[in-house]
């Protein structure tokens, strides 16, 4: 019943994480490392590092990786990934329906008015929390930061181009 267990565990993770990827990591750690013992702590650290180094949401990345490590096949991966997103479908689809109904409602407007400034703060906090010694290794990291900011703000260069160029810059600065 490993598959059922895997499904229930990741469904629970998807249902009970509020507040973005990093909050999810701590819940995944509690469930997968401490409660189930599916992977050990050092493997889990590797999974987090790989998730951060590859594109995509961290929640999806860890579900895919852990699903594979636990079962040793692709179906385990797919099952864990579907399980972690399933609560989102149920919740967001219901909210989307309510949003259409209550968009013009003055009470829901009032709630959103209170939440919107918080969201701006959440994004700013997320950016500040990413300024870590792992992400900013030396002064050249700050140079890349400034170049990326100028390219995006004044240059109106698309984010994808900025990311690709920054990758090339990293390769030139740190590898060659």
């Amino acid at each position: 019943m490993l598959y059922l267990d895997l499904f229930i565990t990741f469904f629970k993770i998807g249902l009970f994480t509020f507040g973005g990827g990093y909050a999810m990591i701590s819940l995944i750690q509690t469930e997968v490392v401490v409660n189930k013992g599916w992977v050990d702590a050092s493997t889990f650290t590797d999974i987090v590092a790989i998730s951060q180094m590859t594109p995509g949401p961290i929640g999806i990345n860890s579900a895919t990786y852990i699903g594979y490590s636990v079962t040793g096949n692709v179906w385990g991966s797919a099952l864990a990934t579907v399980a972690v997103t399933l609560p989102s479908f149920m919740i967001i689809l219901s909210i989307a329906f309510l949003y259409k109904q209550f968009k013009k409602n003055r009470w829901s407007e009032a709630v959103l008015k209170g939440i919107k400034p918080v969201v701006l703060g959440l994004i700013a906090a997320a950016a500040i929390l990413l300024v870590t010694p792992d992400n900013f290794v030396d002064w050249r990291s700050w140079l890349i930061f400034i170049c990326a900011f100028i390219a995006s703000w004044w240059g109106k260069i698309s984010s994808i181009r900025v990311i690709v160029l920054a990758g090339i810059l990293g390769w030139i600065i740190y590898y060659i």
Partner: protein
Amino acid sequence: MSEYFQLFKTFAKIGSFTIGGGYAMIPLIREEVVLKHKWLTDNEFVDYLAISQSAPGILAINISIFVGEKLKGIKGGVVAALGTALPSFIMILVIAIFFKNFRDNELVNSVFMGIRPAVVALMVVPLMNMSKNASLNRFTSFIPFLTVILIVTFGVSPIWILLSGALLGLFHFYYTNRAKN
């Protein structure tokens, strides 16, 4: 091109290029969904962001379901979420099966050392645009700053701050209404 394919392609592009988690996805989603395809206005985008953030689950998946549902109903939501998840699913699977020591590769490491600071810079830019559209006044403009302090300095969970924001909105509405009567 079919609208479903357009939806899938857009979110697959977003999913393939975001490094560093859900919040890093926000600038890309805004560029594609608001500026390029004009599926949402900037004001609606902040609404969607606020709601997706208040609901449990993966932020990027929540937003893609929300946007997909608006355009094409439930099927649209599934297609958009699939687009967001599929690139990382395939990439992680390949790494899990073939490259367990991917993390120790010097070349890969150097590329990511370049990308990580740029990702932080990209998160700052839409903040400046979005703050114009969040209808801040002299009472509400302190809220973003307070949020940053609560999270960064005190490690408060975002969900409590979102709840307080919602309550504050309700109280404000209730009292201004009562004052009028």
